[in-house]
Protein backbone atom coordinates (compact mmCIF):
# COMPACT_ATOMS: atom_id res chain seq x y z
CA UNK A 1 0.00 0.00 0.00
CA UNK A 2 1.62 3.21 -1.21
CA UNK A 3 0.75 6.62 0.13
CA UNK A 4 2.11 9.73 1.76
CA UNK A 5 2.53 10.72 5.37
CA UNK A 6 -0.85 12.13 6.40
CA UNK A 7 -2.96 10.16 3.92
CA UNK A 8 -3.49 7.36 6.39
CA UNK A 9 -1.80 4.41 4.66
CA UNK A 10 -0.75 2.95 8.01
CA UNK A 11 -4.28 3.29 9.39
CA UNK A 12 -5.72 1.78 6.20
CA UNK A 13 -3.41 -1.22 6.57
CA UNK A 14 -4.56 -1.63 10.17
CA UNK A 15 -8.23 -1.35 9.17
CA UNK A 16 -7.75 -4.15 6.62
CA UNK A 17 -5.97 -6.31 9.21
CA UNK A 18 -8.64 -5.63 11.83
CA UNK A 19 -11.47 -6.32 9.36
CA UNK A 20 -9.80 -9.63 8.47
CA UNK A 21 -9.55 -10.44 12.17
CA UNK A 22 -13.30 -9.71 12.47
CA UNK A 23 -13.84 -12.38 9.81
CA UNK A 24 -11.67 -14.93 11.62
CA UNK A 25 -8.59 -14.63 9.38
CA UNK A 26 -5.07 -14.15 10.73
CA UNK A 27 -3.55 -10.86 9.71
CA UNK A 28 -0.52 -8.64 10.11
CA UNK A 29 -0.31 -4.93 9.26
CA UNK A 30 3.36 -3.98 9.13
CA UNK A 31 4.40 -0.42 8.26
CA UNK A 32 7.72 0.79 6.93
CA UNK A 33 8.58 3.73 9.16
CA UNK A 34 11.12 6.44 8.84
CA UNK A 35 11.12 9.92 10.24
CA UNK A 36 7.47 10.95 10.45
CA UNK A 37 6.82 13.67 7.92
CA UNK A 38 3.61 14.80 6.30
CA UNK A 39 3.76 14.32 2.55
CA UNK A 40 6.70 11.92 2.43
CA UNK A 41 6.08 8.79 0.35
CA UNK A 42 5.65 5.74 2.55
CA UNK A 43 4.63 2.13 2.27
CA UNK A 44 2.61 -0.09 4.58
CA UNK A 45 2.00 -3.80 4.18
CA UNK A 46 -0.71 -6.28 5.11
CA UNK A 47 -0.56 -10.06 5.19
CA UNK A 48 -3.73 -12.16 5.41
CA UNK A 49 -3.39 -15.87 6.14
CA UNK A 50 -5.24 -18.91 7.49
CA UNK A 51 -2.46 -19.47 10.05
CA UNK A 52 -0.68 -17.05 12.39
CA UNK A 53 1.77 -14.93 10.41
CA UNK A 54 5.31 -15.71 11.59
CA UNK A 55 7.60 -13.76 9.31
CA UNK A 56 8.22 -10.14 10.10
CA UNK A 57 10.07 -9.04 6.99
CA UNK A 58 8.36 -6.46 4.79
CA UNK A 59 6.33 -7.66 1.80
CA UNK A 60 8.62 -7.58 -1.23
CA UNK A 61 6.42 -9.31 -3.84
CA UNK A 62 2.79 -8.39 -3.11
CA UNK A 63 -0.31 -9.92 -4.71
CA UNK A 64 -2.09 -6.58 -4.54
CA UNK A 65 -0.75 -3.04 -4.63
CA UNK A 66 -2.97 -0.20 -3.40
CA UNK A 67 -1.97 3.38 -4.19
CA UNK A 68 -3.55 6.15 -2.13
CA UNK A 69 -1.89 9.05 -3.90
CA UNK A 70 -2.73 10.14 -7.46
CA UNK A 71 0.81 11.33 -8.14
CA UNK A 72 2.51 8.21 -6.78
CA UNK A 73 -0.04 6.28 -8.87
CA UNK A 74 1.83 7.48 -11.97
CA UNK A 75 5.06 5.83 -10.90
CA UNK A 76 6.00 2.45 -12.30
CA UNK A 77 7.52 1.43 -8.95
CA UNK A 78 4.05 0.72 -7.51
CA UNK A 79 3.64 -2.28 -9.83
CA UNK A 80 7.23 -3.33 -10.41
CA UNK A 81 7.31 -5.94 -7.65
CA UNK A 82 3.77 -7.26 -8.10
CA UNK A 83 3.48 -11.01 -8.60
CA UNK A 84 2.69 -11.79 -12.28
CA UNK A 85 -1.06 -11.52 -12.76
CA UNK A 86 -1.36 -9.40 -9.59
CA UNK A 87 -3.70 -6.50 -9.03
CA UNK A 88 -3.12 -2.78 -8.61
CA UNK A 89 -5.80 -0.43 -7.31
CA UNK A 90 -4.95 3.18 -8.13
CA UNK A 91 -6.37 6.38 -6.73
CA UNK A 92 -6.71 8.39 -9.92
CA UNK A 93 -9.38 10.18 -11.92
CA UNK A 94 -8.28 8.26 -15.02
CA UNK A 95 -10.02 5.16 -16.38
CA UNK A 96 -8.09 1.84 -16.15
CA UNK A 97 -7.66 1.93 -19.96
CA UNK A 98 -5.75 5.21 -19.64
CA UNK A 99 -3.23 3.96 -17.09
CA UNK A 100 0.32 4.15 -18.40
CA UNK A 101 1.93 1.70 -15.98
CA UNK A 102 3.17 -1.39 -17.77
CA UNK A 103 3.43 -5.13 -17.07
CA UNK A 104 1.44 -8.31 -16.52
CA UNK A 105 -1.15 -7.26 -13.96
CA UNK A 106 -4.77 -6.22 -13.58
CA UNK A 107 -5.55 -2.60 -12.94
CA UNK A 108 -8.53 -0.89 -11.32
CA UNK A 109 -8.97 2.82 -10.66
CA UNK A 110 -11.04 4.88 -8.25
CA UNK A 111 -11.10 8.64 -7.82
CA UNK A 112 -10.57 8.46 -4.06
CA UNK A 113 -9.31 12.05 -3.79
CA UNK A 114 -12.62 13.43 -5.04
CA UNK A 115 -14.55 11.05 -2.78
CA UNK A 116 -12.43 12.10 0.21
CA UNK A 117 -12.74 15.82 -0.55
CA UNK A 118 -16.51 15.50 -0.91
CA UNK A 119 -17.21 13.23 2.08
CA UNK A 120 -14.44 14.22 4.53
CA UNK A 121 -13.50 17.66 3.26
CA UNK A 122 -9.82 16.68 3.20
CA UNK A 123 -7.72 14.72 0.70
CA UNK A 124 -7.19 11.86 3.19
CA UNK A 125 -7.80 8.95 0.88
CA UNK A 126 -7.22 5.92 3.07
CA UNK A 127 -10.82 5.00 3.76
CA UNK A 128 -12.01 6.26 0.38
CA UNK A 129 -10.04 3.49 -1.31
CA UNK A 130 -11.03 0.65 1.04
CA UNK A 131 -14.55 0.32 -0.40
CA UNK A 132 -13.03 -0.23 -3.82
CA UNK A 133 -10.59 -2.73 -2.30
CA UNK A 134 -13.46 -4.71 -0.74
CA UNK A 135 -15.54 -4.78 -3.91
CA UNK A 136 -12.74 -5.51 -6.38
CA UNK A 137 -10.91 -8.19 -4.40
CA UNK A 138 -13.88 -9.74 -2.60
CA UNK A 139 -11.41 -10.55 0.21
CA UNK A 140 -13.35 -8.69 2.89
CA UNK A 141 -16.97 -7.82 3.48
CA UNK A 142 -17.96 -4.17 3.50
CA UNK A 143 -19.52 -4.67 6.96
CA UNK A 144 -16.21 -5.90 8.42
CA UNK A 145 -14.39 -2.85 7.07
CA UNK A 146 -17.07 -0.56 8.52
CA UNK A 147 -16.79 -2.35 11.88
CA UNK A 148 -13.00 -1.92 11.83
CA UNK A 149 -13.31 1.77 10.88
CA UNK A 150 -15.47 2.43 13.93
CA UNK A 151 -12.71 0.95 16.10
CA UNK A 152 -10.21 3.49 14.76
CA UNK A 153 -12.62 6.43 14.30
CA UNK A 154 -15.47 6.35 16.79
CA UNK A 155 -18.44 8.74 16.50
CA UNK A 156 -19.03 11.26 13.74
CA UNK A 157 -15.60 10.85 12.17
CA UNK A 158 -16.35 7.14 11.81
CA UNK A 159 -19.68 7.84 10.12
CA UNK A 160 -17.99 10.21 7.64
CA UNK A 161 -15.35 7.63 6.83
CA UNK A 162 -17.99 4.93 6.41
CA UNK A 163 -19.77 7.22 3.94
CA UNK A 164 -16.48 7.47 2.01
CA UNK A 165 -16.06 3.68 2.02
CA UNK A 166 -19.61 3.08 0.81
CA UNK A 167 -19.27 5.56 -2.01
CA UNK A 168 -15.99 4.04 -3.09
CA UNK A 169 -17.62 0.58 -2.97
CA UNK A 170 -20.37 1.79 -5.29
CA UNK A 171 -18.10 3.63 -7.71
CA UNK A 172 -15.50 0.86 -8.05
CA UNK A 173 -15.55 -1.04 -11.34
CA UNK A 174 -14.01 -4.35 -12.34
CA UNK A 175 -10.27 -4.40 -13.03
CA UNK A 176 -8.94 -4.89 -16.54
CA UNK A 177 -5.67 -6.39 -17.78
CA UNK A 178 -3.08 -3.62 -18.02
CA UNK A 179 -3.10 -2.08 -21.50
CA UNK A 180 0.63 -1.36 -21.51
CA UNK A 181 2.48 -4.67 -21.43
CA UNK A 182 6.05 -3.53 -20.86
CA UNK A 183 7.43 -1.42 -18.07
CA UNK A 184 9.04 1.81 -19.28
CA UNK A 185 12.82 1.81 -19.21
CA UNK A 186 13.04 5.05 -17.30
CA UNK A 187 12.29 4.79 -13.59
CA UNK A 188 11.92 7.26 -10.78
CA UNK A 189 12.84 6.47 -7.20
CA UNK A 190 9.51 6.42 -5.38
CA UNK A 191 10.98 7.34 -2.03
CA UNK A 192 12.15 10.89 -2.56
CA UNK A 193 13.62 11.34 0.88
CA UNK A 194 15.82 13.95 2.46
CA UNK A 195 14.66 17.38 3.48
CA UNK A 196 12.95 19.94 1.32
CA UNK A 197 15.85 22.33 1.42
CA UNK A 198 18.05 19.66 -0.15
CA UNK A 199 15.71 17.83 -2.51
CA UNK A 200 12.88 18.55 -4.88
CA UNK A 201 9.63 17.60 -3.15
CA UNK A 202 7.28 19.19 -5.67
CA UNK A 203 6.13 15.69 -6.74
CA UNK A 204 4.54 15.31 -3.29
CA UNK A 205 2.16 18.17 -3.86
CA UNK A 206 -1.53 17.65 -4.46
CA UNK A 207 -2.64 21.17 -3.50
CA UNK A 208 -0.49 24.11 -4.57
CA UNK A 209 -0.43 27.40 -2.63
CA UNK A 210 -0.91 30.57 -4.64
CA UNK A 211 -0.21 33.95 -3.05
CA UNK A 212 -2.29 37.03 -3.76
CA UNK A 213 0.37 39.68 -3.03
CA UNK A 214 -2.16 42.54 -3.18
CA UNK A 215 -4.16 41.06 -0.27
CA UNK A 216 -0.97 40.17 1.67
CA UNK A 217 -0.31 42.46 4.63
CA UNK A 218 3.30 41.34 5.08
CA UNK A 219 2.79 39.79 8.53
CA UNK A 220 5.37 37.04 7.80
CA UNK A 221 3.18 34.27 9.35
CA UNK A 222 3.54 32.02 6.28
CA UNK A 223 7.32 32.45 6.32
CA UNK A 224 7.44 31.60 10.03
CA UNK A 225 5.21 28.52 9.85
CA UNK A 226 6.38 26.84 6.62
CA UNK A 227 7.90 23.51 7.79
CA UNK A 228 9.97 23.19 4.59
CA UNK A 229 11.43 26.71 4.50
CA UNK A 230 9.87 27.00 1.05
CA UNK A 231 8.81 30.60 1.50
CA UNK A 232 11.23 33.35 0.51
CA UNK A 233 10.90 36.74 2.09
CA UNK A 234 11.62 39.93 0.20
CA UNK A 235 12.75 42.48 2.77
CA UNK A 236 12.28 45.38 0.35
CA UNK A 237 8.71 44.71 -0.68
CA UNK A 238 7.83 42.87 2.57
CA UNK A 239 6.08 40.19 0.51
CA UNK A 240 6.54 36.40 0.35
CA UNK A 241 7.18 34.20 -2.65
CA UNK A 242 7.20 30.41 -2.86
CA UNK A 243 10.08 28.18 -3.95
CA UNK A 244 7.86 25.52 -5.47
CA UNK A 245 10.64 22.90 -5.60
CA UNK A 246 10.70 22.88 -1.80
CA UNK A 247 6.92 23.11 -1.30
CA UNK A 248 5.16 19.82 -0.46
CA UNK A 249 1.71 21.42 -0.51
CA UNK A 250 0.84 20.92 3.14
CA UNK A 251 -1.26 24.09 3.30
CA UNK A 252 0.08 25.37 6.62
CA UNK A 253 0.78 28.79 5.07
CA UNK A 254 -2.81 29.12 3.82
CA UNK A 255 -4.06 28.04 7.22
CA UNK A 256 -1.92 30.60 9.05
CA UNK A 257 -2.56 33.56 6.75
CA UNK A 258 -4.78 36.00 8.68
CA UNK A 259 -6.16 37.66 5.54
CA UNK A 260 -6.68 34.56 3.33
CA UNK A 261 -4.15 35.77 0.82
CA UNK A 262 -3.00 32.21 0.09
CA UNK A 263 -5.23 29.78 -1.77
CA UNK A 264 -4.57 26.04 -2.10
CA UNK A 265 -5.30 25.04 -5.68
CA UNK A 266 -5.71 21.39 -6.68
CA UNK A 267 -3.25 20.19 -9.29
CA UNK A 268 -4.93 17.69 -11.60
CA UNK A 269 -3.25 14.32 -11.57
Amino acid at each position, binding site marked *: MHGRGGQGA*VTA*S*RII*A*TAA*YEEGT*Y*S*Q*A*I*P*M*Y*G*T*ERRGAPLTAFVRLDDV*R*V*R*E*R*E*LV*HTPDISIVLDPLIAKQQAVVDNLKPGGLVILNTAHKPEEVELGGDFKVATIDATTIALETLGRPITNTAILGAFAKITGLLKLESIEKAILKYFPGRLGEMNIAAVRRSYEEASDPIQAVVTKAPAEKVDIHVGGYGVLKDVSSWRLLTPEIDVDTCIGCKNCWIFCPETAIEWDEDTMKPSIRYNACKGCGLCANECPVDAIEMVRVEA
Partner: protein
Amino acid sequence: MVGNKAAATACKLARVQVASAFPITPQTTITQYLSEMYARGEWDFDFVNVEGELTSQVVVQGASRVGARTFTCTSGPGLLYMHHPMQVTGSGRLPVIMAVVHRGYKGMQPDHSDLMSQQWTGWGHQYVEHAQEILDSLLMAYKVAEDPRVRIPIAVGYDGYVLSYTAEPVEIPDQAVVDEWLPPNKPMPSILPDEVDPSTFGRGWGGGDPQMPWKTHHDAIMGMEDVQKEIMDSFEKTFGRRYGNGMIEEYRMDEADVAIIAMGTIAGTCKAAVDKMQADGKKVGLIKLRSYIPFPNKDFQEWAKKVDGFAVVDRSICPGKGGPVYMKLRDALYDQEEKTATLQFHAGLGGKEVRVHDFKMVGDKILKAAKGEKVEKITWV
Protein backbone atom coordinates in the same frame (compact mmCIF):
# COMPACT_ATOMS: atom_id res chain seq x y z
CA MET B 1 -3.59 -4.48 18.15
CA VAL B 2 -0.09 -3.12 17.77
CA GLY B 3 2.82 -4.18 19.99
CA ASN B 4 2.79 -0.98 22.01
CA LYS B 5 -0.90 -1.36 22.74
CA ALA B 6 -0.25 -4.91 23.92
CA ALA B 7 2.27 -3.45 26.40
CA ALA B 8 -0.19 -0.82 27.68
CA THR B 9 -2.91 -3.47 27.93
CA ALA B 10 -0.60 -5.64 30.01
CA CYS B 11 -0.20 -2.72 32.46
CA LYS B 12 -3.94 -2.51 32.81
CA LEU B 13 -4.33 -6.26 33.30
CA ALA B 14 -1.53 -6.24 35.90
CA ARG B 15 -3.24 -3.30 37.65
CA VAL B 16 -0.03 -1.29 37.68
CA GLN B 17 -0.24 1.35 40.40
CA VAL B 18 2.39 3.83 39.25
CA ALA B 19 3.52 4.34 35.66
CA SER B 20 5.96 6.98 34.54
CA ALA B 21 7.49 7.48 31.12
CA PHE B 22 8.96 10.04 28.79
CA PRO B 23 7.94 9.67 25.13
CA ILE B 24 10.55 8.62 22.57
CA THR B 25 10.00 6.97 19.20
CA PRO B 26 9.25 4.03 18.82
CA GLN B 27 8.01 3.75 22.41
CA THR B 28 5.88 6.93 22.26
CA THR B 29 2.50 5.31 21.70
CA ILE B 30 2.76 3.30 24.95
CA THR B 31 2.78 6.60 26.84
CA GLN B 32 -0.13 7.78 24.66
CA TYR B 33 -2.19 4.63 25.31
CA LEU B 34 -1.46 4.86 29.06
CA SER B 35 -2.46 8.54 29.10
CA GLU B 36 -5.73 7.74 27.32
CA MET B 37 -6.43 4.90 29.74
CA TYR B 38 -5.72 7.25 32.63
CA ALA B 39 -7.98 9.96 31.19
CA ARG B 40 -10.81 7.44 30.80
CA GLY B 41 -10.22 6.18 34.33
CA GLU B 42 -9.91 2.59 33.11
CA TRP B 43 -8.32 1.59 36.39
CA ASP B 44 -6.90 3.27 39.48
CA PHE B 45 -3.27 4.23 38.88
CA ASP B 46 -0.98 7.23 38.84
CA PHE B 47 0.56 8.26 35.55
CA VAL B 48 3.48 10.60 36.14
CA ASN B 49 4.56 12.81 33.26
CA VAL B 50 8.23 13.67 33.57
CA GLU B 51 10.85 15.74 31.80
CA GLY B 52 13.18 12.88 30.91
CA GLU B 53 14.01 9.21 31.28
CA LEU B 54 16.32 9.67 34.24
CA THR B 55 13.32 10.97 36.18
CA SER B 56 10.87 8.35 34.95
CA GLN B 57 13.20 5.65 36.27
CA VAL B 58 13.58 7.44 39.60
CA VAL B 59 9.79 7.90 39.92
CA VAL B 60 9.06 4.19 39.53
CA GLN B 61 12.02 3.38 41.75
CA GLY B 62 10.59 5.46 44.59
CA ALA B 63 7.10 4.07 44.09
CA SER B 64 8.46 0.54 44.05
CA ARG B 65 10.35 1.12 47.31
CA VAL B 66 7.07 1.81 49.09
CA GLY B 67 5.48 -1.28 47.57
CA ALA B 68 3.67 -0.10 44.44
CA ARG B 69 3.54 -2.18 41.28
CA THR B 70 5.30 0.01 38.71
CA PHE B 71 5.89 0.31 34.98
CA THR B 72 8.10 2.41 32.77
CA CYS B 73 9.18 2.18 29.16
CA THR B 74 11.69 3.73 26.80
CA SER B 75 13.78 3.24 23.66
CA GLY B 76 17.41 3.53 22.52
CA PRO B 77 18.95 6.82 23.68
CA GLY B 78 16.26 7.19 26.37
CA LEU B 79 17.42 3.93 27.88
CA LEU B 80 21.03 5.13 27.90
CA TYR B 81 19.89 8.24 29.75
CA MET B 82 18.37 5.92 32.40
CA HIS B 83 21.62 4.07 32.94
CA HIS B 84 22.53 5.58 36.30
CA PRO B 85 19.20 5.14 38.14
CA MET B 86 18.80 1.65 36.62
CA GLN B 87 21.80 0.56 38.70
CA VAL B 88 20.08 1.76 41.83
CA THR B 89 16.82 -0.02 40.92
CA GLY B 90 18.80 -3.24 40.50
CA SER B 91 20.83 -2.83 43.66
CA GLY B 92 17.69 -1.94 45.60
CA ARG B 93 16.14 -5.24 44.46
CA LEU B 94 13.05 -3.35 43.31
CA PRO B 95 10.64 -5.32 41.10
CA VAL B 96 10.21 -2.56 38.50
CA ILE B 97 9.11 -3.74 35.05
CA MET B 98 10.21 -1.84 31.99
CA ALA B 99 9.36 -2.27 28.31
CA VAL B 100 12.32 -1.44 26.08
CA VAL B 101 11.15 -0.79 22.53
CA HIS B 102 14.39 -1.36 20.66
CA ARG B 103 15.94 1.52 18.77
CA GLY B 104 19.57 1.32 17.85
CA TYR B 105 21.87 4.21 18.50
CA LYS B 106 23.39 4.54 15.07
CA GLY B 107 20.02 5.66 13.70
CA MET B 108 16.37 5.23 14.62
CA GLN B 109 15.67 1.74 13.33
CA PRO B 110 15.75 -1.20 15.73
CA ASP B 111 18.56 -3.44 16.85
CA HIS B 112 19.29 -4.82 20.30
CA SER B 113 22.21 -2.52 21.09
CA ASP B 114 20.16 -0.37 23.48
CA LEU B 115 19.22 -3.06 25.98
CA MET B 116 22.50 -4.93 25.46
CA SER B 117 24.34 -1.83 26.65
CA GLN B 118 22.62 -2.16 30.06
CA GLN B 119 23.99 -5.60 30.95
CA TRP B 120 25.78 -4.37 34.05
CA THR B 121 22.81 -2.69 35.70
CA GLY B 122 21.67 -5.86 37.44
CA TRP B 123 18.30 -6.41 35.77
CA GLY B 124 16.72 -9.47 34.16
CA HIS B 125 16.73 -9.06 30.35
CA GLN B 126 14.16 -10.66 28.08
CA TYR B 127 13.64 -10.40 24.32
CA VAL B 128 10.27 -11.17 22.75
CA GLU B 129 8.98 -11.86 19.27
CA HIS B 130 5.35 -10.81 18.76
CA ALA B 131 2.54 -8.73 20.28
CA GLN B 132 0.93 -11.61 22.16
CA GLU B 133 4.30 -12.46 23.66
CA ILE B 134 4.74 -8.84 24.81
CA LEU B 135 1.47 -8.95 26.74
CA ASP B 136 2.10 -12.40 28.19
CA SER B 137 5.76 -11.70 29.04
CA LEU B 138 4.98 -8.49 30.89
CA LEU B 139 2.41 -10.32 33.03
CA MET B 140 4.92 -13.09 33.74
CA ALA B 141 7.66 -10.52 34.41
CA TYR B 142 5.64 -9.06 37.30
CA LYS B 143 5.14 -12.50 38.79
CA VAL B 144 8.83 -13.35 38.48
CA ALA B 145 10.17 -9.99 39.66
CA GLU B 146 7.89 -9.83 42.70
CA ASP B 147 8.58 -13.41 43.75
CA PRO B 148 10.22 -13.30 47.21
CA ARG B 149 12.99 -15.58 45.87
CA VAL B 150 13.84 -13.06 43.13
CA ARG B 151 13.00 -9.35 43.75
CA ILE B 152 14.87 -8.19 40.65
CA PRO B 153 13.72 -5.61 38.06
CA ILE B 154 13.08 -6.98 34.57
CA ALA B 155 13.38 -5.29 31.18
CA VAL B 156 11.28 -6.80 28.39
CA GLY B 157 12.70 -5.81 25.01
CA TYR B 158 10.95 -5.87 21.68
CA ASP B 159 11.79 -4.39 18.29
CA GLY B 160 10.58 -0.93 17.41
CA TYR B 161 8.40 -0.28 14.31
CA VAL B 162 8.14 -3.86 12.96
CA LEU B 163 6.59 -4.92 16.27
CA SER B 164 5.76 -1.76 18.22
CA TYR B 165 3.68 -0.37 15.33
CA THR B 166 2.62 -3.61 13.65
CA ALA B 167 -1.00 -4.66 14.12
CA GLU B 168 -1.76 -8.35 14.64
CA PRO B 169 -4.31 -10.41 16.60
CA VAL B 170 -3.77 -10.53 20.37
CA GLU B 171 -5.82 -12.56 22.83
CA ILE B 172 -6.57 -10.50 25.94
CA PRO B 173 -6.99 -12.63 29.04
CA ASP B 174 -9.91 -12.16 31.37
CA GLN B 175 -9.21 -9.56 34.08
CA ALA B 176 -10.60 -11.77 36.86
CA VAL B 177 -8.30 -14.62 35.86
CA VAL B 178 -5.29 -12.29 35.80
CA ASP B 179 -6.27 -10.87 39.20
CA GLU B 180 -6.29 -14.32 40.69
CA TRP B 181 -3.06 -15.40 39.04
CA LEU B 182 -1.20 -12.15 39.76
CA PRO B 183 -2.17 -10.89 43.23
CA PRO B 184 -1.04 -7.39 44.31
CA ASN B 185 2.64 -6.78 44.96
CA LYS B 186 3.67 -7.18 48.58
CA PRO B 187 6.25 -4.64 49.75
CA MET B 188 9.40 -6.33 51.03
CA PRO B 189 11.35 -3.70 52.95
CA SER B 190 13.52 -6.45 54.46
CA ILE B 191 14.75 -7.90 51.16
CA LEU B 192 18.12 -6.28 51.72
CA PRO B 193 19.92 -7.35 54.87
CA ASP B 194 20.12 -3.69 55.74
CA GLU B 195 20.83 -4.08 59.38
CA VAL B 196 23.04 -1.04 59.51
CA ASP B 197 20.34 1.55 59.05
CA PRO B 198 17.17 1.18 56.95
CA SER B 199 17.37 4.82 55.99
CA THR B 200 20.47 4.13 53.89
CA PHE B 201 18.16 2.58 51.27
CA GLY B 202 20.39 -0.37 50.71
CA ARG B 203 23.78 1.29 50.86
CA GLY B 204 26.52 0.40 53.24
CA TRP B 205 25.46 -3.10 54.22
CA GLY B 206 27.38 -6.33 53.95
CA GLY B 207 28.92 -6.66 57.36
CA GLY B 208 32.03 -4.75 56.39
CA ASP B 209 32.54 -6.77 53.17
CA PRO B 210 31.94 -4.41 50.23
CA GLN B 211 31.69 -7.39 47.85
CA MET B 212 28.70 -8.83 49.67
CA PRO B 213 26.06 -6.64 47.93
CA TRP B 214 27.44 -7.70 44.53
CA LYS B 215 27.38 -11.40 45.40
CA THR B 216 23.84 -11.21 46.76
CA HIS B 217 22.69 -9.38 43.64
CA HIS B 218 24.38 -11.88 41.32
CA ASP B 219 23.02 -14.90 43.19
CA ALA B 220 19.49 -13.48 43.07
CA ILE B 221 19.63 -13.12 39.27
CA MET B 222 21.14 -16.58 38.79
CA GLY B 223 18.22 -17.90 40.83
CA MET B 224 15.70 -16.39 38.42
CA GLU B 225 16.11 -19.27 35.96
CA ASP B 226 14.18 -21.82 38.01
CA VAL B 227 11.50 -19.29 38.96
CA GLN B 228 11.02 -18.25 35.32
CA LYS B 229 10.56 -21.88 34.29
CA GLU B 230 8.13 -22.50 37.13
CA ILE B 231 6.08 -19.41 36.29
CA MET B 232 6.00 -20.37 32.61
CA ASP B 233 4.35 -23.65 33.64
CA SER B 234 1.87 -21.87 35.86
CA PHE B 235 1.10 -19.34 33.11
CA GLU B 236 0.31 -22.14 30.67
CA LYS B 237 -1.92 -23.85 33.22
CA THR B 238 -3.94 -20.66 33.70
CA PHE B 239 -3.89 -19.04 30.25
CA GLY B 240 -3.17 -21.95 27.88
CA ARG B 241 -0.15 -20.42 26.15
CA ARG B 242 3.54 -21.09 26.61
CA TYR B 243 6.89 -19.95 25.21
CA GLY B 244 9.18 -22.96 25.56
CA ASN B 245 10.43 -23.22 29.11
CA GLY B 246 10.45 -19.46 29.59
CA MET B 247 14.22 -19.20 29.05
CA ILE B 248 14.29 -20.58 25.48
CA GLU B 249 11.57 -21.52 23.03
CA GLU B 250 12.40 -24.35 20.67
CA TYR B 251 10.77 -24.39 17.25
CA ARG B 252 10.73 -27.65 15.26
CA MET B 253 13.84 -28.94 17.01
CA ASP B 254 12.58 -32.57 17.21
CA GLU B 255 14.13 -33.60 13.92
CA ALA B 256 16.82 -30.96 13.74
CA ASP B 257 20.54 -31.67 13.38
CA VAL B 258 21.48 -28.03 13.86
CA ALA B 259 19.93 -25.01 15.56
CA ILE B 260 19.73 -21.34 14.67
CA ILE B 261 19.72 -19.13 17.77
CA ALA B 262 17.93 -15.78 17.41
CA MET B 263 16.07 -13.27 19.55
CA GLY B 264 13.15 -10.90 19.04
CA THR B 265 11.16 -10.36 15.85
CA ILE B 266 13.75 -11.94 13.58
CA ALA B 267 13.09 -15.22 15.41
CA GLY B 268 9.58 -15.08 13.88
CA THR B 269 11.03 -14.68 10.41
CA CYS B 270 13.38 -17.55 11.26
CA LYS B 271 10.36 -19.76 12.07
CA ALA B 272 9.00 -19.15 8.57
CA ALA B 273 12.46 -20.02 7.18
CA VAL B 274 12.69 -23.20 9.29
CA ASP B 275 9.30 -24.34 7.88
CA LYS B 276 10.62 -23.88 4.35
CA MET B 277 13.99 -25.53 5.08
CA GLN B 278 12.42 -28.57 6.73
CA ALA B 279 10.01 -28.88 3.78
CA ASP B 280 13.17 -29.09 1.64
CA GLY B 281 14.52 -31.87 3.87
CA LYS B 282 17.08 -29.67 5.65
CA LYS B 283 17.22 -30.51 9.34
CA VAL B 284 17.44 -27.00 10.73
CA GLY B 285 15.49 -25.86 13.79
CA LEU B 286 15.27 -22.68 15.86
CA ILE B 287 16.09 -22.07 19.49
CA LYS B 288 14.60 -18.70 20.29
CA LEU B 289 16.44 -17.08 23.17
CA ARG B 290 13.97 -15.31 25.47
CA SER B 291 16.07 -14.70 28.55
CA TYR B 292 19.49 -13.21 27.92
CA ILE B 293 20.00 -12.43 31.63
CA PRO B 294 20.08 -14.89 33.26
CA PHE B 295 21.44 -16.90 30.34
CA PRO B 296 20.08 -20.44 29.87
CA ASN B 297 23.47 -22.15 30.25
CA LYS B 298 21.99 -25.50 31.25
CA ASP B 299 19.53 -25.60 28.35
CA PHE B 300 22.25 -24.98 25.79
CA GLN B 301 24.57 -27.50 27.43
CA GLU B 302 21.81 -30.10 27.05
CA TRP B 303 21.06 -29.11 23.46
CA ALA B 304 24.80 -29.30 22.65
CA LYS B 305 24.62 -33.02 23.34
CA LYS B 306 21.80 -33.42 20.82
CA VAL B 307 22.73 -31.18 17.89
CA ASP B 308 25.85 -30.84 15.73
CA GLY B 309 25.86 -27.08 15.31
CA PHE B 310 24.63 -23.74 16.58
CA ALA B 311 24.31 -20.68 14.33
CA VAL B 312 24.02 -17.57 16.46
CA VAL B 313 22.32 -14.61 14.80
CA ASP B 314 23.17 -11.58 16.92
CA ARG B 315 21.18 -8.38 16.43
CA SER B 316 23.71 -6.30 18.33
CA ILE B 317 27.46 -6.03 18.48
CA CYS B 318 29.90 -4.75 21.02
CA PRO B 319 32.42 -3.08 18.69
CA GLY B 320 35.80 -4.65 19.26
CA LYS B 321 34.35 -7.68 21.03
CA GLY B 322 31.58 -9.20 18.91
CA GLY B 323 28.06 -10.52 19.22
CA PRO B 324 26.98 -10.86 22.88
CA VAL B 325 24.82 -13.97 22.45
CA TYR B 326 27.60 -15.73 20.55
CA MET B 327 30.16 -14.91 23.26
CA LYS B 328 27.83 -16.06 26.01
CA LEU B 329 26.96 -19.27 24.19
CA ARG B 330 30.64 -20.15 23.64
CA ASP B 331 31.21 -19.49 27.34
CA ALA B 332 28.32 -21.82 28.25
CA LEU B 333 29.69 -24.59 26.01
CA TYR B 334 33.39 -24.39 26.96
CA ASP B 335 33.31 -27.22 29.51
CA GLN B 336 31.37 -29.62 27.26
CA GLU B 337 33.26 -32.84 26.58
CA GLU B 338 32.32 -32.84 22.92
CA LYS B 339 32.67 -29.71 20.89
CA THR B 340 29.68 -28.47 18.90
CA ALA B 341 30.27 -26.33 15.83
CA THR B 342 29.31 -22.68 16.33
CA LEU B 343 29.02 -19.88 13.79
CA GLN B 344 28.56 -16.17 14.34
CA PHE B 345 26.19 -14.11 12.17
CA HIS B 346 25.76 -10.34 12.50
CA ALA B 347 22.31 -9.38 11.24
CA GLY B 348 19.65 -6.71 11.56
CA LEU B 349 22.02 -4.07 12.90
CA GLY B 350 20.81 -0.51 12.47
CA GLY B 351 17.42 -1.92 11.55
CA LYS B 352 18.64 -3.75 8.44
CA GLU B 353 15.86 -6.05 7.34
CA VAL B 354 16.48 -9.75 7.95
CA ARG B 355 14.59 -11.87 5.45
CA VAL B 356 13.54 -15.51 5.16
CA HIS B 357 16.21 -16.13 2.52
CA ASP B 358 18.86 -14.74 4.89
CA PHE B 359 17.96 -17.44 7.41
CA LYS B 360 18.10 -20.07 4.67
CA MET B 361 21.68 -18.99 4.02
CA VAL B 362 22.40 -19.22 7.77
CA GLY B 363 20.87 -22.72 7.81
CA ASP B 364 22.94 -23.90 4.83
CA LYS B 365 26.16 -22.64 6.39
CA ILE B 366 25.65 -24.25 9.79
CA LEU B 367 24.65 -27.55 8.13
CA LYS B 368 27.98 -27.49 6.28
CA ALA B 369 29.92 -26.54 9.40
CA ALA B 370 28.23 -29.35 11.36
CA LYS B 371 29.48 -31.85 8.77
CA GLY B 372 33.00 -30.61 9.36
CA GLU B 373 33.26 -28.62 6.14
CA LYS B 374 35.22 -25.42 6.26
CA VAL B 375 32.96 -22.37 6.59
CA GLU B 376 33.87 -18.82 7.55
CA LYS B 377 33.24 -18.37 11.29
CA ILE B 378 31.84 -14.85 11.12
CA THR B 379 29.31 -13.66 8.54
CA TRP B 380 27.80 -10.19 8.14
CA VAL B 381 24.34 -10.96 6.77
